[in-house]
């Protein structure tokens, strides 16, 4: 019985050209585009300069600022207000206002001022832009100082940073393994939900309900195809990571497959639960969207999990995504072994049982 049902599911899925395309093309495109978008690095800060001093010092400082590859030069404006105008019309992000007598004050009073103003509607961007500028300015001051006086350095302490597991500090290495989890969630969570709701809308569900098919068999016949599809999706992910980004897992690929088998069962089960409650596409979409959005945002995919307040961490720890994302990053970048990830595996297996029992219980043959 199960065999026939699964055969039917596969035929239905692969007959639908668009669905097949989504399964094969979406992971590919998403993995190529998303890592470039999902990046908190701040680049291309558009700078407008107001130079009231016009001395060799001020122009030297301006050159130093422009030499930074995160800063893009926009214009030189005569007054602060005309520079502010550029910010208001969104043509610039940062103003550096060099006051009159900048050089004179520095040389005579050993102290001079400078104004750095950034558009901080986006707080991160504003403060990062300011950080770049402040660092350059303080470097500039140090450089000038060391030319003017010879300091004799005593008692130096060297702080040696060592960036473990990602020496090149490439953010994409961090995002690609985690985005695979997100894509897997979208495909293996949404599609089964729509699948069952589709059967309901077409009226097929009634026929299945009067047949001798039992609840677990029906649920299994819906789960197994997505298990296979999920495996295809994660394999596409491996290939893109390997050949497009050159990311090779430090740990074992079999451990990843093992975890993804468990993970797919839990998200597909989540989709099935929702589809049991929803009666139309619109309902299923919104419920699914609502929960998946919360799960994704709280899973530590884009923002650090430990920075969330305690109540949010409690909610987040009920998300299978949180664990699988952690596992993927650990295996890919740190080469963690199955033994080291055992706690995560046990929790995820727990989710599978919990979610799928719920799915079977909530599927009612009578409405």
């Amino acid at each position: 019985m199960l065999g026939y049902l699964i055969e039917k599911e596969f035929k239905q899925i692969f007959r639908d050209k668009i669905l097949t395309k989504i399964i094969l093309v979406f992971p590919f495109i998403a993995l190529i585009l998303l890592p470039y978008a999902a990046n908190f690095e701040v680049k291309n800060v558009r700078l407008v300069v107001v130079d009231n001093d016009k001395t060799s010092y001020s122009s030297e400082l301006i050159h130093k600022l422009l030499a930074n590859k995160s800063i893009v030069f926009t214009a030189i404006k005569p007054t602060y207000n005309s520079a502010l105008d550029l910010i208001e019309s969104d043509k610039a992000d940062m103003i550096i206002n060099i006051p009159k007598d900048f050089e004179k004050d520095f040389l005579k009073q050993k102290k001079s001022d400078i104004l750095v103003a950034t558009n901080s509607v986006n707080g991160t961007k504003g403060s990062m832009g300011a950080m770049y500028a402040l660092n350059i300015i303080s470097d500039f001051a140090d450089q000038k100082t060391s030319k003017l006086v010879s300091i004799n350095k005593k008692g130096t302490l060297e702080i040696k940073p060592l960036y473990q597991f990602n020496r090149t500090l490439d953010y994409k290495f961090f995002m690609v393994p985690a985005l695979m989890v997100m894509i897997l969630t979208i495909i293996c969570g949404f599609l089964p939900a729509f699948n069952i709701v589709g059967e309901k809308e077409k009226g097929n569900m009634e026929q299945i309900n009067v047949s001798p098919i039992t609840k677990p068999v029906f649920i299994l016949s819906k789960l197994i195809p997505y298990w296979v599809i999920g495996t295809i999706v994660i394999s596409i992910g491996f290939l893109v990571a390997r050949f497009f980004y050159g990311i090779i897992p430090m740990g074992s690929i079999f451990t990843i497959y093992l975890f993804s088998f468990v993970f797919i069962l839990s998200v597909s089960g989540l989709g099935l639960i929702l589809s049991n409650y929803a009666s139309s596409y619109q309902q299923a979409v919104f419920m699914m969207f609502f929960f998946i959005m919360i799960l994704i945002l709280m899973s530590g995919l884009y923002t650090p999990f430990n920075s969330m307040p305690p109540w949010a961490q409690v909610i987040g720890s009920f998300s299978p995504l949180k664990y699988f994302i952690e596992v993927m990053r650990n295996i890919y970048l740190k080469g963690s072994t199955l033994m080291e990830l055992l706690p995560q595996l046990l929790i995820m297996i727990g989710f599978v049982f919990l979610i799928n029992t719920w799915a079977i219980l909530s599927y009612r043959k009578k409405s």
Partner: protein
Amino acid sequence: MKQLLSFTKKEFLHIFRDTWTMMIILVLPVVMMLLFGYAVTTEIKNTNIGVLDLSKDELSIKIIDRIDKSEYFSLKKNYSSFKEVESSFRRSEVGVVIVFDENFSENLLHLNNAEIQVIADASDPNSAKTLVNYVSNIIAQSLKDLNKAPQSNYQITPELKLLYNPLMKSSYNFVPGVMGFIIILVCAMMTSISIVREKERGTMELLLASPTKPIVIIISKVAPYFFISIINIITIFFVSYFIMGVPINGNILWISLLCLIYIFVSLSLGILISTIANTQLIALVVSAILLLMPSMLLSGMLFSVESMPVVLRGIAQIMPAKWFISAIRKLIIMGVDLKYVLKELGVLVFMGVVFLTISIKKFKKRLE
């Protein structure tokens, strides 16, 4: 006119009967704002650190104590060898490990040259860089207390002005983003699904064969979503103004005008999708993949568009959400004049007209 009213009433009934969907649509913006406002943060706090202190002298203990006391770190592990450090990282127990050499303070005080190694888990490079910065600052501070740091004589004192958002509230950035996203969701995605459902069930044919004009059908289809999105916008403004303290600096009239234009664009986008898609599944997939995901990622809600590569910036230009968010941000938060958002308004109106024209053409073709 009477026809239009009764059709609209039918659509409203359809939607309000579906309590689950209604509840989610009305609650969604609030949940999103609470998540972005109180849960999700890019700031780095409570990082677990480990220490491999081979010297165990007064100075190293002092530094460790100081790091542990700061709000960013809490000391979790004390190691005795490098081997333990490695495995601890792989279990992701700690984010940073600080290593003090043997004879650390002796080296510092007598040889004037000592070394502290800060090993960061750089799988998240951004956090790693920030953490290393924090640790270095704390160590430098501890040394300053020992009067060991060199002092420079000449200084430039920068004055820092964080324009429009001096308190660096993240809500200033995500409130416009949530607005742009919710309206696309309600107007484009829901509208398209609801029109395509009639197609899929075959009831669209019936409607078209009836003496009702197609325009009446479409307007009545669209009206409830127009209404819901206005409620959503009001909720968002309410939560952001009264709960999150986001100011409304611009002219309310212009803000409302902008919102209406954006709703118009999103609705026409929804109609366009519904003329292309034949099944609800396709309408859904098209709007989710082509609209929702890009609107979330490319609109500057989480990640800044200016920092992305050219291709993605190009894609962002054709997203209505990007233009709306940029304009509403200027109006609400920066409180600028209308003349500074004319470009965004123009682009939005243009997009709306284009979407509508294409869908009317497609619609007519189907009738013939």
